[in-house]
C-alpha cells in the first residue's frame, strides 16, 4: 500500500514539474517520473520476496525476482543517457543565449 503511495507521489510531482516552465524543471520532472516508474516495475516482481539474489544471502527470506531488477537497471541507464541528452539541449539553448523557458515550437 505504501508502495503505491510512494509511486503516486513521485509520479504526481514529476508530472507537475514537467508541466511547468523552464527546461530544468522539465528535466527534473522526468527524473522523478523515471523513479516512479522504476519503482513500479520493481514491485511488479512482488514485494513479499526481498532476499538478495546473491551467494550467501539465503537467510533473508525468499529471494527477489531478478527479472524486474534487470529491467530497471536497463531502464535507469537508458534514462540517464536521455537525461544527459536533454541537458545537452539545455546547454545548447544557453549557448544560443535563449530564454530558458521550455518553449515549444511557435
Amino acid at each position, binding site marked *: 500500500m*505504501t508502495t*503505491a*503511495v*510512494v*509511486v*503516486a*507521489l*513521485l*509520479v*504526481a*510531482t514529476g508530472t*507537475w514539474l514537467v*508541466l*511547468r*516552465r523552464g527546461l*530544468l524543471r522539465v528535466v527534473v520532472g522526468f*527524473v522523478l517520473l523515471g523513479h*516512479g516508474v*522504476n*519503482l*513500479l516495475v520493481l*514491485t*511488479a516482481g*512482488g*514485494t*513479499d*520476496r*526481498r532476499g*538478495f*539474489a*546473491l*551467494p550467501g544471502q539465503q537467510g*533473508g527470506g525468499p*529471494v527477489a*525476482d*531478478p*527479472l524486474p*531488477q*534487470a529491467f530497471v*537497471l*536497463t531502464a*535507469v*541507464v*537508458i534514462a*540517464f*543517457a536521455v*537525461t544527459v*541528452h536533454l541537458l*545537452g539541449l*539545455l*546547454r*545548447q539553448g*544557453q*549557448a*544560443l*543565449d535563449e530564454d530558458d*523557458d521550455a*518553449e*515549444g515550437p*511557435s
Partner: protein
Amino acid sequence: MVAALVLLAALAAGAPLLARRLGRATGYVLSAGFLAAAGLLVALAPRVLGGGAVEASTPWLPSLGVEAALRLDGLSLVFALVALVVGALVMAYCARYLSDASARGPVLPLLTVFAAAMVGLVLADDLVLLYLFWELTTLCSFALLSSAGAKAVAPARRALVITIAGGLALLVAVVLLALAGGTTRISVLLAEPEVVLGSPLAWPVAACVLLAAMSKSAQLPLQFWLPGAMVAMTPVSAYLHAATMVKAGIYLLVRASTLFAEQTPWQVALVAVGMATALVGAVMALREHDLKGILAHSTVSQLGLLVAAIGVGTPTALGAALLHTMAHALFKATLFMLVGIIDKETGSRDIRDLSGLRRAMPWTAAATALAALSMAGVPPALGFVSKEYLYQGFVSAPGPAWVAPAAAACAVTASALTFAYSMRIVWGAFGGPDHPELYEPARSFLAPAAVAAAAGLLLGPAVSLFDPLVDAATSAALPGSVPPRIYFWHGLSTEVVLSGVTVALGSLLFWQRDRVDRALVRLRLPDAGGIFDAGHSGLLALGGRVGAGTRAPSLAAHLARPLAVVAVLGVVGAVALGGALPERTATAVPGEPVLLVVLAVALACAAVTSSAVVLVALVGLVGLVVAVRMVLVGAADVALTLLLVEVLTAVVLVLVLRGGRLHLPPVVRSAGRGAVPAGLLAVGAGTAAGLGTWALTGRRELSATGAYLLDNAEELTGGTNVVNTVLVDFRGLDTLLESVLVGVVAIGLGALTRGGPASGREVRERPDVVLRVASRVLAPLAVLASVVLLWRGHDQPGGGFIGALVAGAGVVLVHLAGTGEGAAGTGRTGRLERLTDPVLLAGAGALVAVGTALLPLVWGGALVEPFSVPGLYALGVSSALLFDLGVYALVVSLVAACVRGFGRVPAATPATAPGTTRGAERAEVVR
C-alpha cells in the same frame, strides 16, 4: 475491341512525337486514328446489334476479385461511337485551331487519353475498372482545364472537387454493390437485378449512383462547374464538356436503369432533378451573352432533359434519350467549333456583337444556323426527331395520371426556351448589320463543323438508320422490353402538336427578346459557384483553427495530452476492474513509512522551489531515498547503479547550472492560469499510477521465468549474481542495445555542445589545491575500484555498468580538479583527454560488445550465447567479462562526453547576478 483501346493508347503515347514532326497537322492523324478505332468497333457491330455482346477479360486484382473485363453491347457501342466520331471531328478541327506550338503541348495527348478513357469507361464490365476510367476522365479534364492558365485555377478547382466528390460517391456505390451482389462484374450484377434489389444496400447504391451522375453530368445543384469550365480552349469544351465527359453520367444512369428503372423513388428523383435542371439551365442560357456560356448552360439544360427521360424509364423514353444523346453531341460539338471559329475571326464571343455574318462568312453562317436549328428542334433536323421522341416518352410516362402532362409541360417549356436562345444564335448569324472586314475561314478549318452541321440536317429524315443501334442499346439497358421504332415522320400525333407549341412559344420569346432580357436581368439566382468558393474558404479556415492545437507554443500543452489520457485510463481501469482482482500477496517493506515521509517533504519542496540549487539538491535526496528503498526490496545492483547515476546526474546538473541562471522562473506565474489544470493533471496522473501499482502488481506468485532464473542461473552461466547474469547472459541483447544507445548519446553530445559563440572559452578559476591533490590520489583509486567491480560483477554486486560509473566518477574528479589538462596556456591536449575521446571509446566499446555477442554464431551458437574463453577460464575470463568490458567502455565514453561537453562554459551568459537581471528583463519583455 481490345484492339481499339490499344490503338487509342498508342495514339496517345505517340502524339507528342508526331507533333514534333508534324506540328498541328497531327490532328488529322489522330482524327484518322479515331475513325479507325470506331471502325474496329463497328466491325464488331453485327454481333452486337442482334442483341449479343463481345466480351474480353483478364484478371487484375484477384485478391479483391477484380478483373479487367470489357464488354461491348448496344449501349456501349452507342456511347463509344459518339465519343470516337465526335472526337475525330474535334481532332480535325484542332489541326487548324491550334498553333504549331500548342500542338506540341499537352493538349493533343491529353485529348487522346481522354478519348481512350471514355471508350474504356463505356466498355468496362467490371465495377472497379469503370471507376478507374471514370476518374481518369476527371483527371484529363482537370489537366486540360489547367492548361488554360491562371484564370483557370478557380474553375478547375471547382470542377475537380465536384467531380471527384461524385466519383467518391461512385466508389461507395461500387463497394456496396460488390458487397450486395457478391461480384464486381457488371454484366453478372445486371443479369439478376433481384439480388441487388433484395439487399438493404440497394437504396444507398441508387443514391450514390445518382449523385455520381449528377456531379459528372452537371445536374442541379451541382451544375455550376460546367459554365466555369468554359475558360478552357474551345476544342476541349467541344469535346469534353459538350459531347463526351458529361455524357458519362448519362451512360451510368442508363446502365443503372437495368436495376432501378421500375422503382418509383428512382423515377421520381431522376425526373424531378432532370426537369429542374432543364428549366434552370435554359433560363440561364437565355440570360447569357457569352456564346460559350450560352452553350454551356444549354448543355446543362439538355442533360437535364436526358436525365428526366431516363427517369421515366420506359423503352420509348430510354430510346429517345439515347437518340437525343447522339443528336446533342453532334449539334453541340458543331456549335462549339463554330463559336471557336467566330471567336478567332471576330475576336469576340459576345452574342450582342454577333451579327450579319451571312455576307462575309456565308458558309460559316449557314453551318451555324443549321446546328442551331437542330438544337431548337426544327424539322427536318436530327434534333427535331430526337425531341419528338422525347416528347413521346414523356407523354407516355407511367405512374399517376398527372405525371405525364407535368413532365411534358416542363419539357415543352424548356424546349421553348431552348428555341428562343437558338434563334438568337441564328439571328446573330443572319440578321443585323454587316461586318465587311470579316472573311470566310479556311475551308479545312470550317470543314469538320460544316460536315457535322450537314449531317445534323441529313440525318433527320434518314434517322431510321439509327433504328438497329437504338434497338440494341435499349434492349441492353432493359432486357426483354420492346424498343421503339425509330423513323422520321409520325403523322399528326401528340408529339407533333407539342413541337408546334414549342415553336410558337419559342418564337414569342424570341420576338419579345428585349422584354425577356429585362425580366431576366432582374431575376436573381443564387450564385452556386460563389457558395462553393465560400465553402472552400470556410474549410480552410476551419482547418486552420483545428490545426491551432498542434501549433501550441508551450511544451506543457503537448505533454499534457498523454498524461491526461493516462489519467483517464486509470479511471477507466478502476471502473472496469472493480473488485475483480486476485488477492494481494505483497507485504509491507520495513522502514518504508519513514522513507515515505522524507520523500513527501522533499517532493513538496521540489515542486515549489525557485532555486535551481535547491532543486538539484532535492533531486539528489529523492534519488537517495529511492535507492534505499530498492535495497530494502532486495535489489542490490540496481540500488548501487541508481546511486551512482544520481551522483553523476547531479554533477552534470551542476555543470549545466554553471552556465545558466541559478534562479528559475517562479513555479506559479502571476497569471496562474496554467497552474490549476497542471495541478489537477498531476494529481490525476499520480493517482492513476498509484492505483495501477496497487491493483496490478504484487498479486501473484513468483513468475515462471523468475523461478527458472533463480534456480538455474549459476548452473547455466557460472555466475552467482543472478541479476548480472540476467543482464549479460540471459538478456544480453537488451544490455547490448542499451550500451549502444549510451554510446550514441556520447557521440551526439560532442556534436551538440560544440559550436556556439566563443565556445571553448573556459571559466578557469584555479582549482583548490586540496581538490587537485585529492584527485591525484582518488582518481586512480576510482579506476582501480572500477576494474575490480567489473571483474567480480558476475558473482558479486558489480558489473560493467557499476564499474564504468565509478570510473566515470574518477574522470569527473580529474576534470574538476583540472589535472588532466595540459599545462595552462599551452593548449596541448592532455594524455587523459586523448585516451577518453568519446567517439573512440564508443566505437571500440561497441565493437567489443557486438563482437562478443556475434562470436558464438561462428560455431553455430546463438547470438549473445555465453562461452568460455579457452585457456583463460581458470582466470575467470568468460564471454560475460568481455561483453561487460564493451559495456564498460561505452558508459565511460558517455561520462567523458559529459565532462567535455558540459565542462566548458559558454561565454555568453555568466552565472551571476547580472545574468539574472538581464534574464529577468528579457522575461519582462516577453511577457
